[in-house]
């Protein structure tokens, strides 16, 4: 059967092109780098603090962890919050206060900020403690679209996206399954 090439299709060029309207150029260099406030994409935030941006990215990865997905997709998913915070003080307060709460909980439990809590399991316990807050619900609910609706990411999950422009699947494997047990 025809399978999908799941290797990353995010070349620097295509990524810059696809994200030109929402993402600073520096983010394109993020692939493979760690999530930190010192990263160029975090430093380019205009309204939210760089540490807040980095915390949102790590939080996004902790909420919807996919080990075969690079940080750049999570960065792209949360980057719009900076512009939103710039035009909407309520959004800015929700996010900065939400991240401050995460850091306070992390300090209580582990004596470091959320970003520095070393293990995913420990961070997930912190998130469990805030999952009913408006902040967490907002971030989780937005991510369902802002993460999974990135077309560059679909092939990594084996999803091919738009089909009519390719003639449908009538000649592209709609019935090519070949491993079912014979009855």
């Amino acid at each position, binding site marked *: 059967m025809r399978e999908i090439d799941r290797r990353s299709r995010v070349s620097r060029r295509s990524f810059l092109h696809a994200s030109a309207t929402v993402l600073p150029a520096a983010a394109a260099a993020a692939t493979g780098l760690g999530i930190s406030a010192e990263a160029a994409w975090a430093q380019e935030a205009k309204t939210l603090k760089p540490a807040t941006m980095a915390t949102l990215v790590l939080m996004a990865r902790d909420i919807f962890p996919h080990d075969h997905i690079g940080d750049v997709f999570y960065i792209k998913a949360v980057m719009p919050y900076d512009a939103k915070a710039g035009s909407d003080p309520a959004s800015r307060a929700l996010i900065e206060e939400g991240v401050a709460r995460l850091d306070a909980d992390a300090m209580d439990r582990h004596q470091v900020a959320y970003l520095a809590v070393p293990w995913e399991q420990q961070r997930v316990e912190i998130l469990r403690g805030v999952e009913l807050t408006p902040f967490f619900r907002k971030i989780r609910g937005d991510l369902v*679209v802002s993460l999974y609706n990135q077309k560059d990411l679909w092939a990594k999950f084996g*999803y091919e996206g738009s089909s009519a422009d390719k003639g449908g699947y009538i000649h592209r494997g709609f019935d090519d399954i070949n491993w079912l047990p014979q009855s």
Partner: protein
Amino acid sequence: MANFDQNDDSVVVIVGSGAGGGTLGNELAQKGIKVVILEAGARVENQDFINDEWASFVQLAWKDTRTTSGTWRVHQDFPNLPAWIVKAVGGSTVHWAGASLRFQEHEFKTRTTYGALPGANLLDWPITLAELEPYYTKAEDKMGVTRTNNIPGLPGNNNFKVLEAGAKKIGYKEVHTGRMAINSEPRDGRGSCQQIGFCFQGCKSGAKWSTLYTEIPKGEATGKLEVRPNAMAVKIEHDASGKVTGVVYMDGSGALQRQKARVVAVAGNSLESPRLLLNSASAMFPDGLANSSGQVGRNYMRHMTGSVYGVFERPVHMYRGTTMAGIVRDEAKMDPSRGFVGGYELETLSLGLPFMAAFLDPGAWGRSFTSALDDYANMAGMWIVGEDMARETNRVTLDPVVKDKNGMPVASVHFDDHPNDVAMRQHAYQQGAAIYDAVGAVRTFPTPPYPSTHNLGTNRMSEKPRDGVLNKYGQTHDVKNLFVSDGSQFTSGAACNPTLTIVSLAIRQADTISGMMSRGEI
């Protein structure tokens, strides 16, 4: 194309252009009757449909605010989106899957067959299968339903092949690619299915029947049908004798307009239709138009639904090809030994990655959730369509607080599963998982009901005026020139997708209305 004067009081005004309204409009126009269809949404032609789930949702879905209450999970997950239906010319025939099944005989007689179920408000239809059969035959021909009229079935896609292999392995007999209003060969000026997928996003090839590019242009070609898009009905007016006289609507510019009418037929789907009747309350009809029974908005049904997904060791690519061309019918029978009355169908279903993320387990996060999505390519999926029990307390009311931009109260939808619905869903989840387990699933999971696509029963037919809103022709018991033409007519929902029955009733209603008009009764 016709263009009728707003003061022309000889026209039939139909509110809505979907399976009920679009079909009725064409049928009447073919008989030479002048028709104005008021459609709340825009006219989007099929070449403009988008193979992208969220972008298509924005293009087509009914997104105007509604409110919800009750114990159904949709209230928690999607509090302002109780239904996933379409606001566009063609209505929900734009995004329907095409499954076209007839009711079984006993499903017209639920009160007689199922008995007096506590907590339910069952009632027999005032019509029988035998009375509707000639119209089912006409509808199947009109819509080009596969496995009828010597039309071959659609070829099975990967998702169907998994369902079929598993179902046969556990002993199910009636398993095939469905009775689908999707061309398996060219017919009626439309081509055959290209296995595009994206049936829910509007069929770009036009192989799937939709009033948008069948009934409506055929009606328009007679010169007797005018479709007005972006015309949101606000209120139905009546005279001192109690006859309806026209419909007030808001046009695309936001201005209120009034179209006079000889007859009004309401076909706005089961949430908007009762809302319009309730919002048309007057001194003569203080509880809403045609609501002397108090049943307008009540007995809301949405089918007992849910989905089962199975994850396999190797790829399935369930999203390739026709979304719902696959069915297991063995459980649609009446067999109370299973612990519930009524039955259900299992039908293939797939969602793209974006909607799978949104609907797999709304509100979920963490690795249990993401590990399921990681195996998206290896998933097969099925949807459960079972009969749910009418309850008086499951109902559409006018929200006491929230209003639309015309200042009219929005629809508020209350729903609680009946214990029979819960028992049936549990059974269906187990059988669905067993199907996938039989062919080597490594993981199966039940998925909760999505926002309702089948909205039924809120203006139901009844033999006696005290039990319902409509007589056997969809004419309101209270107002003789006021009809209802959508799924809100349903007295019960049956274990099958409703569109074929809505279309059959609309063809029959056109005969009724034209007969009454020619005899001067309305």
